């Protein structure tokens, strides 16, 4: 991690000094070591604050909507999964691609601080990593755990190490065809084949409607309507959002009725149907830990099953499944038919 960080910083400095870009969007240290914050750096001095570690999970592509409208090129540090969001936004003409220089950076999966805490490790002051082992400094002394045990939920279903869009790649070793994967420690990499991302969706589908209803009531009733899931989502990019309309009856912070929570989450998930890249940011930022990605994944699963496999953001040209149709699409009655006995 340290080595790749050095390479990224060198590259960024070079591009800034050479005038290719006039600013850089990356991460800077937050209040704690585990919460790096997205930041724009405009000079070599400011760039000293740049950070890239195993907690830089946030996807920077959404910030490019506004940043790419400003003067001059911006250097964007994008991890492989972030490039899906980037492509999707380019496709929707939300990012001015000419104003962005994408530096594809390698990623070996991001760490979830909450998972470390769940292991019973408290008072964490720092982390050092070596391959798959994490050494965690705490106020009670040193603890250790396996890196692969504390990866973020979204990293467990990694889409691969291939960058879908980039101008240049930064890898510890020589990049091979848009991928940095040769350089990654194999042990720290989540296995792509063994994790079925629809596992939980299938489990829910197998429940009875009553069980499903109470599952979602339990989860969605935790919602505090902070709108973090909407704000972070690289697909949610409307200038005027439906939820910002005070007259809609669903814009209030405090939910007055259970319906409001349901409606908010149905609409949020449905608005990104066919455009959701399954980046999992919504669940990551949720302060209430609602598994929001399960709503999106249900739609993705349906699209894959009914209209053919589709991965949003894989390219910046193809038509999304909801802006397209086929003459022989299944009828909506299929929902009831394939539902089984329930």
């Amino acid at each position, binding site marked *: 991690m340290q080595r790749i960080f050095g390479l990224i910083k060198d590259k960024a400095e070079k591009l800034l000094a050479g005038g290719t870009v006039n600013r850089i969007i990356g991460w800077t240290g937050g209040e704690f070591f585990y919460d790096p914050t997205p930041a724009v750096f405009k000079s070599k001095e400011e760039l000293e604050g740049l950070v890239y570690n195993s907690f830089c999970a946030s996807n920077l592509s959404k910030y490019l909507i506004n940043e790419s409208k400003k003067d001059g090129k911006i250097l964007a540090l994008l991890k492989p999964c972030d490039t899906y969001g980037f492509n999707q936004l380019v496709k929707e003409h939300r990012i001015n691609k000419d104003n962005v220089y994408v530096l594809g950076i390698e990623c070996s999966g991001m760490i979830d601080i909450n998972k470390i805490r769940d292991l019973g490790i408290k008072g964490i002051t720092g982390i050092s990593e070596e391959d798959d082992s994490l050494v965690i400094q705490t106020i009670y002394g040193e603890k250790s755990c396996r890196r692969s045990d504390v990866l973020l939920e979204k990293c467990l279903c990694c889409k691969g190490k291939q960058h879908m869009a980039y101008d240049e790649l930064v890898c510890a070793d020589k990049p091979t065809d848009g991928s940095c994967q040769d350089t990654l420690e194999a042990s720290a990499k989540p296995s792509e084949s063994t994790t079925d991302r629809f596992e939980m969706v299938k489990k829910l589908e197998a429940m009875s409607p009553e069980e499903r*209803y109470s599952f979602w009531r339990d989860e969605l009733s935790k919602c505090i309507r902070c709108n973090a899931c909407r704000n972070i989502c690289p697909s949610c990019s409307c200038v005027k959002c*439906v939820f910002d309309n005070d007259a809609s009856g669903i814009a209030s912070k405090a939910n007055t*009725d259970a*319906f409001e929570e349901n409606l908010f989450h149905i609409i949020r998930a*449905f608005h990104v149907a066919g455009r959701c890249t399954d980046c999992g940011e919504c669940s990551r930022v949720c302060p209430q830990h609602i598994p929001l990605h399960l*709503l999106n994944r249900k739609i993705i699963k*349906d699209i894959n099953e009914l209209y053919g496999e589709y991965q949003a953001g894989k390219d910046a040209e193809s038509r999304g499944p909801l802006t397209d149709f086929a*003459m022989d699409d299944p009828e909506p009655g299929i929902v009831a038919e394939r539902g089984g006995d329930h």
Partner: protein
Amino acid sequence: MPIKKSKNGEFKPLIVAFCCNWCSYAGADLAGTSRLSYPAEVKIIRVPCSCRVNPMFVLRAFQRGADGVIICGCHPGDCHYSTGNYYARRRMTLLFSMLDYLGIERGRTKVEWVSAAEGVKFSTVMNEFSKTIHDLGENKKLGDLRCKEFLD
């Protein structure tokens, strides 16, 4: 206008039918002129095309007390605007699947293609749908308490 939902304590559902102007609405018209009966609890909302039905309309209908929502449009291939109903078909399939996923009874939502010549079909579809909703009972999962004032 408050809508009476119960009569002598007996459940009287409220069904919202979104009908496309070109086929299904004319189909409903034909059902009427042919003296075919369909339940009075079906409230028809005329839309220019089935693809005009925003998923939000369906949710709104449930919020305001509908017990069932049915969307009727031209048969695939017969859309007045050539392809509108194809888009509606995908959209509604995903929406219904989503509602099912959240535990809402799948019988409460339906899409039917009814042409202008199918008065009989319109009346059959509505009778059958109304029967399903009668069996399912009141929509308790997606109603909004604040909207109770609209209803009796």
